[in-house]
């Protein structure tokens, strides 16, 4: 399974192999006096006339490598015949499988390589056996840990058992790895974990040097996947279509799966590395400016911004404005121009993770803030292809010999140098010494939050390790959420801040032998009892000269792990608050109209409901119901068929509730805002009361609480320390202190920068407050600096209705509620409409006269908040008073909905197409005068909560998410106005 291919991530740095292998081969060949093979003409060439020399650095005979009988005159006698019929599929051959035949087919196959390549390149081969490319150890570790199958955050298994064997265990090294175990189909079959091992054995075991991958010889439709095995994976080039261009007349030129020529390369080009590195970690894609498609995204020759031909069986996005290539690729460099032979072929240690295996660092070539490059790797090994001249550092490509100037970080921040860049100098300071360079310089990344695999026991599938067809067919290419813009960071195991992407983090469904669904979108849980929907650090390989802006870390709580509004996976139960009470409903994702009512809690005067969901499955734990004029009813909803009121909190005039972490925020109307500690929901404890004019609604973007304060606009409190809450900002919506605002609701989102704003510059990142302004319409404010808010829409000078001087006609609309999210809009199949990622605000709009008139759901594109665009407005015959959004995954696509509280029902509007919302029914037909609705939700990008609790596990030992104290400190770092912009690296004309 491709997710398991996280190995690709683990192997991220490793692409390089061959450069060094080439060098090593060459050096070793010349140096080895014991070389048992000799070059010379053989009978083979009578048929294979014109065949290229595989090893031109030291000519070798055909049989020296391939075996066989060079003197035979007939093919059948000359060639080695298999003792048993070999399989013609991707199953993993045993290590002792018919060595003579294996050697004949591929002399560099790892099963026999010790006697062929290894005869001369002995040390390299020994190292290679222990490299990640052979063990695929990192690849196997994440999914096992995240599903609780291993207890330690490190690799336990290799594709074949392997021992270090040299008597030395270096830093981060292991003594041995046992072979990947067979899955017991019956053990733990009732759990998701019981099926993950099978997934690994059936979908993830081709990604290593023991295998040819999925593109076995003769298999069609594998363009981009064809490769060899063993040494030849890297050192023998395959064409995109897998067809031979050899001069050897005997080669079948129409059968895919042959090397392009019978020739080795010392240093493989990028084209070779990406035969494997195109999976979910996508470094081989990012590097080239390609991205996996968003589910459902049209692509193909006629669709601009996508590849024109299938690669790896799929099309890719390749829009240079959205997914520009890594600057190194852009300049013509290859993977191995950065990565060393040890990165790729190992250094003799058994490593579990890529970050331990890779020795190259950005600073090895670009130097540090303090000094120019020492031209050595981080482990002190000399980089032979780097040269200094006139105080500048140059790189000579291992692949094509091209020379590249290497900018030095210290020059960029030196005002005396022509390369000086003032903005860069502001960023590249000792305070940022613990950031990986690629944290800020990662231009973009494709991030698919939430994966889904399905195992169907009514079918069988080849177990790649055992070679048997066993019960259970695993399908894995099911992405849930997608983003190219979202950005996350955390600590890597070196104590450096690095970008984070989703880990293996796969939810799963299982169909039993009868085909019936037996496990439904279960989420993994690790052995430590935390969620297995993890993230982990990555070198994204989308490096750009222009860095991200400071605010993308220092003003975005989502970046640091507190979650965003866009990636909540809706689960199984909804709570609908109507005039009679709270109704718990089991949602049928496939037929929302047919959802099943479970229980009701009679409550009088409910106006708003908020839910605390559990950290592992996103299921209701506690509901907090605001009862107008009375208080907050606390409901234990862990058993949704048997809810129970467990506490009541006296308030004055509650209008809205928000629960985050262990804090409950109550918009208490004229009573202000109240903060409660609800660590024990049975015993809520008032922490602080904040004065407001008429608190109506709330949103939290840590550390700031945004309060829609009616006539007083938006008040912003810093609630990082409940005992010391400060008023941090205020938004005067209409801009005229003499007249009342009409703030009903507020939501806050962070808009990340994009690589190209249309003018060749990185776009501006900002924190955006979206406000439902009642009679005055809606407002968009830049609240990146809450003390210096800027109204972006309506633009300055726009007259705002003054609600206090006259009562408008009853037909006048009021904007009552708002929700925000980021999402992809799929383009048209013909390509006329491009697929784009946008930010949206959904508004509940209701005329003044509530009794009879219909309301509307308005959808506004706010990607450019200075020029928002209304894309749809759906009439809501039953009125539109409050809004919730829900994203249910119905394989293979995520379906998005707006749930609109109306007079007599919760209307369900499908918003999967932003510009074509469709009223599809009601969620709970028994409701009457619906006040609010909340759906169980699992936030996929929320790793830490506001109580400081780490919500999700991490599969790499030594790595961790930011803790709350760090997050709070980072979000409070003062920034000058110029720091809000991105940094462009100038090369000083070279």
């Amino acid at each position, binding site marked *: 399974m491709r997710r398991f291919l996280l190995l690709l991530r683990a192997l991220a740095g490793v692409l390089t192999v061959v450069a060094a292998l080439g060098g090593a081969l060459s050096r070793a060949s010349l140096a080895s006096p014991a070389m048992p093979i000799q070059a010379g003409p053989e009978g083979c060439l009578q048929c294979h006339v014109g065949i290229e020399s595989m090893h031109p650095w030291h000519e070798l005979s055909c049989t020296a490598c391939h075996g066989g009988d060079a003197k035979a005159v007939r093919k059948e006698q000359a060639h080695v015949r298999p003792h048993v019929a070999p399989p013609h599929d991707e199953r993993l051959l045993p290590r002792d499988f018919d060595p003579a035949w294996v050697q004949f087919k591929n002399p560099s196959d790892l099963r026999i390589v010790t006697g062929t390549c290894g005869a001369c390149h002995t040390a390299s081969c020994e190292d290679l056996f222990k490299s990640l490319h052979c063990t695929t150890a990192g690849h196997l570790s994440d999914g096992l840990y995240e599903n609780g199958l291993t207890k330690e955050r490190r690799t336990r298994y290799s594709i074949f058992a392997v021992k270090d064997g040299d008597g030395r265990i270096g830093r981060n090294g292991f003594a041995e790895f046992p072979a990947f175990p067979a899955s017991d189909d019956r053990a733990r079959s*009732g*759990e*998701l*974990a019981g099926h993950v091992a099978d997934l690994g054995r059936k979908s993830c075991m081709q990604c290593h040097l023991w295998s040819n991958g999925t593109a076995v010889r003769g298999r069609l439709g594998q363009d981009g996947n064809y490769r060899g095995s063993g040494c030849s994976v890297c050192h023998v080039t395959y064409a995109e279509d897998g067809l031979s261009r050899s001069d050897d007349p005997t080669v079948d030129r129409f059968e895919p799966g042959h090397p392009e020529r019978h020739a080795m390369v010392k240093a493989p080009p990028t084209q070779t590395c990406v035969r494997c590195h195109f999976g979910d970690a996508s470094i081989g894609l990012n590097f080239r400016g390609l991205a996996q498609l968003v589910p459902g995204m049209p692509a193909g020759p006629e669709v601009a911004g996508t590849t024109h031909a299938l690669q790896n069986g799929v099309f890719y996005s390749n829009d240079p404005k959205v997914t520009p290539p890594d600057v190194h690729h852009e300049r013509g460099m290859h993977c191995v121009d950065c990565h060393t032979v040890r990165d790729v072929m190992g250094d003799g240690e058994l490593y579990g993770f890529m970050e331990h295996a890779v020795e190259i660092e950005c600073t090895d070539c670009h130097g540090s803030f303090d000094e120019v490059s020492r031209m050595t790797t981080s482990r002190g090994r000399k980089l032979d292809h780097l040269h200094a001249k006139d105080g500048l550092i140059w790189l000579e490509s291992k692949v094509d010999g091209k020379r590249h100037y290497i900018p030095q970080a210290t020059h960029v921040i030196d005002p005396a140098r022509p390369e000086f860049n003032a903005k860069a100098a502001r960023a590249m300071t000792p305070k940022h010494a613990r950031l990986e360079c690629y944290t800020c310089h990662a231009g973009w990344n494709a991030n698919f939050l939430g994966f889904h695999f399905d195992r169907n026991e009514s079918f069988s599938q080849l177990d790649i390790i055992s070679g048997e067809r066993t019960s259970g067919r695993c399908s894995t290419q099911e992405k849930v959420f997608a983003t190219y813009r979202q950005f996350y960071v955390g600590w890597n195991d070196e104590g450096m801040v690095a970008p984070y992407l989703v880990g293996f983090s796969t939810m799963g469904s*299982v169909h039993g032998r009868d085909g019936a*669904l037996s*496990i*439904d979108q*279960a989420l993994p*849980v690790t052995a430590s009892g935390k969620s297995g929907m993890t993230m982990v650090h990555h070198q994204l390989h989308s490096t750009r000269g222009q860095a991200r802006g400071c605010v993308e870390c220092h003003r975005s709580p989502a970046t640091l792990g507190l979650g965003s509004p866009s990636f909540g996976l809706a689960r*199984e*139960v909804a709570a609908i608050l109507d*005039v*009679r009470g709270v109704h718990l409903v*089991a949602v*049928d994702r496939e037929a929302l109209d047919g959802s*099943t*009512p*479970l*229980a*009701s809690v*009679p*409550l*009088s*005067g409910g106006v708003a409901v908020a839910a605390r969901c559990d950290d592992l*499955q996103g*299921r209701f*734990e506690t509901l907090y119901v605001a*009862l*107008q*004029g*009375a*208080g907050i009813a*606390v409901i*234990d909803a862990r*058993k949704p*068929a*048997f*809810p*129970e*009121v*467990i*506490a*009541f909190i*006296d308030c004055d*005039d509650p209008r809205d509730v928000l629960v985050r972490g262990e804090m409950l925020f109550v918009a208490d*109307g*004229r*009573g202000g805002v109240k903060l409660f500690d609800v660590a024990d929901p049975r015993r809520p404890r008032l922490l602080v009361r904040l004065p407001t004019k*008429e608190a109506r609604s709330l949103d939290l973007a840590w550390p700031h609480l945004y309060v829609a304060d009616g006539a007083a606009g938006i008040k912003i409190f810093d609630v990082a320390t409940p005992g010391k809450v400060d008023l941090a900002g205020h938004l005067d919506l209409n801009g005229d202190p003499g007249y009342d605002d009409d703030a009903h609701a507020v939501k806050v989102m962070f808009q990340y920068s994009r690589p190209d704003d249309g003018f060749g510059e990185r776009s501006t990142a900002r924190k955006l407050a979206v406000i439902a302004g009642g009679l005055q319409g809606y407002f968009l404010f830049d609240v990146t600096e809450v003390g210096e808010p800027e109204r972006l829409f309506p633009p300055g000078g726009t007259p705002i209705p003054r*609600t*206090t001087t*006259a*009562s408008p*006609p*009853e037909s006048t609309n009021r904007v009552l509620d708002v929700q925000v999210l980021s999402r992809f809009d799929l383009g048209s199949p013909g390509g006329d409409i491009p697929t784009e990622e946008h930010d949206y605000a959904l508004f509940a709009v209701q005329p*003044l*006269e509530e*009794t009879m008139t219909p309301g509307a759901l308005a959808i506004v594109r706010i990607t450019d908040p200075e020029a928002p665009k209304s894309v749809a407005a759906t009439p809501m015959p039953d009125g539109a008073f409050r809004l919730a959004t829900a994203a249910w995954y119905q394989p293979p696509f995520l379906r998005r909905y707006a749930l609109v509280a109306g007079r007599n029902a919760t209307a369900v509007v499908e918003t999967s197409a932003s510009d074509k919302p469709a009223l599809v029914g009601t969620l709970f037909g*028994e409701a009457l005068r619906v006040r609010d609705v909340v759906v169980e939700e699992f936030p996929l990008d929320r790793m830490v909560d506001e109580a400081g609790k780490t919500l999700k596990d991490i599969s790499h030992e030594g790595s961790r998410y930011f803790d709350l104290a760090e997050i709070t400190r980072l979000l409070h770092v003062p920034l000058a106005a110029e720091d809000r912009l991105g940094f462009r690296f100038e090369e000083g004309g070279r």
Partner: protein
Amino acid sequence: MSRWAQAVSSLAVVALFVPLASAQAGSGAAKQFLASLDLDGNGYVGRDEWSGSGATFVLLDVDLDGWLTGPELTKSTKAGARAVEAPDPSRLAVAIGDLPDLVEPFRRSCLACHDQQRVERAAKDAKGWSETVRKMREKKEASITEKDARAIVEWLSDQRARVALSLASFGTGDPVGAWGMVIGGGDLHLFDRDRNGKLEGGELARLIHQRADLDRDQLLSPGELALLPLAVDRRALFQKLDRDKNGGVSLKELGIPAPLLQLFDRNADQQLERGELPSSRRYGGPISMILIGDAKTALDLLDRDHDKSLSAAELARFPRTLMRFDGDNNASLDPKELETAVTAGRAEGPLAAFDDFFTRYDLDGDGSVARREFPGRDAAFARLDLDGDGVLTSRDAQGGMTRVDFTPEALRWRD
């Protein structure tokens, strides 16, 4: 005349006026009424155009924006019509809330001229507030002090939303409904201890107290007291009721609040019979088979003696909802009558909003809900079946307060 009596009188006048106008001009009546009050012709009735009391203006000004619009007058006239039918001021007071114990000068004069929002607006800044106080004093209400006035404004702020809610509920049609929706349904089952088919005395008191005692501490806090449609000035009411000053209103201290009883007790016999509890079709009790929507299934589930008809005994749990379909009055439902019941039930929509889970889904009355009785998805059933025995029983409902275990072991799917 008290302010609220004035309000009722005003509404009564409005109510008398509008039905007549309605008969003449249909939906145009409200516009006509508006036009008669809208002296400056701007389409709204301002406070200066209103000749009635300030309190009535506040009552009618549902959105409290200081203007009366056509729809507000329409709603008010409907409410007024109801007030005419049931002129008991206490009922109205229940619906819209009771007056607080405000200082007398404010009660007498200020609200007669100023709607509450205007007072609030004046209080927004010091200058406006001083002006308001000065004007109050000019009305020779020397006894009102600035401190009093501030207290009044605070009270107004506190009550504004609640009054608006009460008015909205009042104006939109069902003064009993807002509270009746949480006191109807299966409460007769739950609280009628002596099984005499009615709630009286202690049963009724317990129902009312328990419905508000959300934290189950046997005492009503001020906020819980506010859940009852009694407590407009909940602090004053709380102080009045909490006679032992122990910080909560006990069952005994609360008793049976007369205004609440009056909401339902149509025949004024101090007890609530089945017919007096809200009888909206939405709260008609258990008829869960409509969720399955198949008369045959319903028959299979309920027909314990397999005689192809449902006897009175078999329908004992559904006497009201199903026996009304007993067309031949033989005290049992034959398949045809059951089909009619299911069809009718389907048309009516699900009824058992407040039935608990077992009442709703335990169709065969065996005390558990089997998979075939539950209409939801397999995954939903499995989630509820915590002990994994394939049926939902009281064991699955117990321990609601114990933490649900989401460990892998606990998440095991049960076939």
